[in-house]
C-alpha cells in the first residue's frame, strides 16, 4: 500500500473501527438529447482515505463542493460509492449484500444537519426514536423503556414522548435525531453539520451533549463541518478536504497550530474570532478566485489555481504543481501529520 493509504494514528493502540480506503464517488453528467449519453462526470470525491478509532472524533472539514457530505453518505452506503473500500471491523461495506447491509446499519448511524427536515412531522417523538428498534425487531420486550431512556440520555424529558416534532425547539429536535441514531447502539456516528442550523446559544448545548455521549458510550465520530471553530473544539483529529481530495490531516492541535498546506492556512486565517483585539491584529491570507468546477478539476494539485504559495514559487517549481499531483504523506514536519503539497512548510 502506498503511503497515501494509511494515515494511521499510532498514539491509539488497536485497530481503527472504521477504515476508508481510496473512496471515489463520481456523478455522471448526461447529455440532454433523446439518447442520454454520459458526457462527463462530477468528481465529487476522488480518492479519500482515513481511519476512525473508537472514542475519538475525526473532523472532516471543507467548504461547499469539497465532497465532505458526499463522503459521509458514501460511507453509510446511502449513496453507493463508485469505487473504494469502507471497512468496518474487517468487513467491507461496499461489497455487502442487501441483507448484510441492513444488519450493518446497526453499527453506523447518522445525524443530519437540518433539525426541521430530519424528523417526520407526522409521527410522535417516541415513535421516531422507536422506529429503528422496530425495523430491526428489537422493540418487543422493553422497547418503550428503551425509548424513554434514550430521551433522558440526550437531555430531554421522556414525558414529552407523545408530542410531535414541531412542538420542540431546533436544539431539542437535533437531540431527538441523536437519540434516534443511538437507538441501535452504533459504534460509529456520522454527524453531518449537526449544529450548523442551530442558533449559536443552542449549539453549545448540543456540542456538550455529543462530547458527553462520546465519553459515556465510547462512540467514534465522523464530524463533518465547515465551521472550524466547532471542529477545533470537539475533534481529536482533523482532515481538510478540497475539491474531492484530502489535502491535510493531523491531530487537532497540530493542524491548527502548525498547519502546513496553503489551503488550510488560508482557511484558518479566514475564520473570524469573537475577540476584537485579536481580530484587529490578525493578518488574513486571502485566497484568490473561485473554486473550480468539480466536473473539471485542475490537473496536478487541485488547489494550484488559487494557491497563494504557488505565486511565490519559481517557474520550475510552479510547473510541478500542475504536472504532478502531490501525495498525502508525512513530510517530516510533524508526527502523524500528512500533507498533500510539494512545498509544504510548517508555520506556527
Amino acid at each position, binding site marked *: 500500500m502506498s503511503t497515501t493509504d494509511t494515515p494511521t494514528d499510532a498514539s491509539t493502540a488497536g485497530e481503527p473501527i472504521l477504515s476508508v480506503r481510496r473512496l471515489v464517488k463520481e456523478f455522471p453528467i448526461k447529455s440532454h438529447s433523446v439518447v442520454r449519453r454520459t458526457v462527463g462526470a462530477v468528481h465529487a470525491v476522488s480518492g479519500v482515505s482515513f481511519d476512525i478509532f473508537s472514542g475519538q472524533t475525526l473532523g472532516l472539514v471543507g467548504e461547499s463542493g469539497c465532497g465532505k457530505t458526499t463522503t459521509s453518505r458514501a460511507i*453509510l452506503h*446511502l449513496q453507493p460509492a463508485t469505487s473504494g473500500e469502507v471497512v468496518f471491523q474487517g468487513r467491507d461495506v461496499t461489497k455487502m449484500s442487501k441483507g448484510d447491509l*441492513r*444488519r450493518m*446499519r*446497526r453499527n453506523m*448511524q*447518522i445525524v*443530519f*444537519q*437540518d433539525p426541521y*427536515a*430530519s*424528523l*417526520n*412531522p*407526522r*409521527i410522535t417523538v417516541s415513535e421516531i426514536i422507536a*422506529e*429503528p428498534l422496530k*425495523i*430491526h425487531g428489537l422493540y418487543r420486550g422493553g422497547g418503550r423503556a428503551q425509548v424513554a431512556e434514550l430521551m433522558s440520555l440526550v437531555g430531554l424529558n421522556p414525558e414529552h414522548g407523545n408530542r*410531535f416534532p*414541531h412542538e420542540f425547539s431546533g436544539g431539542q429536535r437535533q437531540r431527538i*435525531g441523536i437519540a*434516534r441514531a443511538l437507538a*441501535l447502539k452504533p459504534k460509529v456516528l456520522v454527524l453531518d453539520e449537526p449544529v450548523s442550523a442551530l442558533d449559536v446559544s443552542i449549539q453549545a448545548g448540543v456540542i456538550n451533549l455529543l462530547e458527553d455521549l462520546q465519553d459515556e458510550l465510547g462512540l467514534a465520530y465522523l464530524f463533518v463541518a465547515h465551521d472550524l471553530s466547532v471542529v477545533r473544539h470537539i475533534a481529536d483529529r482533523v482532515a481538510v478536504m478540497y475539491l474531492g481530495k484530502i489535502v491535510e490531516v493531523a491531530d487537532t492541535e497540530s493542524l491548527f497550530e502548525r498547519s502546513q498546506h496553503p489551503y488550510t492556512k488560508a482557511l484558518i486565517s479566514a475564520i473570524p474570532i469573537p475577540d476584537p483585539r485579536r481580530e484587529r491584529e490578525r493578518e488574513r491570507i486571502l485566497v484568490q478566485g473561485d473554486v473550480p468546477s468539480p466536473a473539471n478539476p485542475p490537473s496536478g494539485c487541485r488547489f494550484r489555481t488559487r494557491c497563494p504559495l504557488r505565486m511565490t514559487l519559481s517557474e520550475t517549481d510552479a510547473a510541478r504543481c500542475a504536472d504532478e499531483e502531490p501525495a498525502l504523506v508525512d513530510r517530516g514536519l510533524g508526527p502523524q501529520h500528512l500533507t498533500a503539497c510539494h512545498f509544504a512548510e510548517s508555520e506556527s
Partner: protein
Amino acid sequence: MPSRVNTAGDTLDSAARQAARTNREFAVKARTQRQIVFTRFRRHKAALLSLVVFVLVVLFAFIGPYLWHTSDTFMSNDIYTAPDAAHPFGTDSNGIDMMASVMQGTKSSLIIAVTVSVAATTIGAIYGAVSGFYGGWTDTILMRIADLFLTFPIIAVAIMLDNRFAAEASSLWLLILVLAALFWPGAARVIRAQVLSLKEKEFIEAARALGARDRRIIFRHLLPNTLGSIIVIATLTVAGTILTETALSFLGFGVQFPNTSLGLLVTNNQTAIEGGHPWLFYIPGVFIILIALTINFIGDGLRDAFDPQQTRVRA
C-alpha cells in the same frame, strides 16, 4: 429543572421564575396541527358556508326519506303538478313526488361519488407514491400507463358503445369502476409530484439510514405526509364524479333503472322545459350544481388550510 449556579452569593429565586412560568402557561394555549388546519379553514368564508350547505344537502338526502311523507316509488294521481305545499318539488309524469326522487337521487349520487373518490384516490395515491419513490424507468413506465388512462376518451367510447350495451352492463359496480378509472390518474400525478420533492427530505434519508425497507418508507413516511393533498383530491373527485356521471347519463351510460341518480333524473326530464314542467329538469340540475360548487369551495378551503401561501420576512 436543571440546577443553577449561585452567583456572588445571591440565592436564586426559583419561586419567582415558577410564578412567571405559570403566567405564561395561561397566556398561551396549546394547539395541535389539526386545530391549526381547522382555524385556517374557518377563515375561508366561502368554504365555511359551503360546508354548511353541503351538510344540509347530505342530511336532506340521507335523513330526508325517513321524514318525508311519500317515497319516490309511490305513483299518485297528481301528474305533473307544479311545486306546491304537498309537493315542494312538484310531481313527474307518473305522479311520483319529485322531492322524494331528488332525495333518493342525491343519496345515490353521493354514495357513488364517495365510493369512486375513495377508490380512485387510494389507488392513485399509492400508485403515484410508488412511481415517484422509485423513479427512473419504473416511474416513466408507470406514468405512461397512467397517461393512457387519462387520455382515454371515455365519453367518446361511451357514445360508441351505445345504449344497448349500456343497458346490459347496467351494473352499478361497472359504472363505479369506469369512473374510478377516469379519476385515479389525476390523483397519481399530484401525489407523485409531492413524493418527488418529499423524498429528498432528510427524514426519508434518515429512515433509509436506519435500514427501513421501501414499503415502510412509502407507507409510513411518504404517504402520511401527503395527507393534505389526498384530502383535497378526494374532495374534488366527489364533485368531478357527480358531474361526469351526469354527462354519462345523458349519453345513456350512467346509472340505470332500478338505481337512481341526479344525473338520471336530469336525463329523464330533458324535455321537461318544453313540456311546460321545467321544475322537473331544473331542480335536480340545481342540486347537481349546488353539490359540485360547494364541494369545490370546500376543497379550496382545505387546500388553503393545509398549505397556505405566505410571504416571509426575516426577523
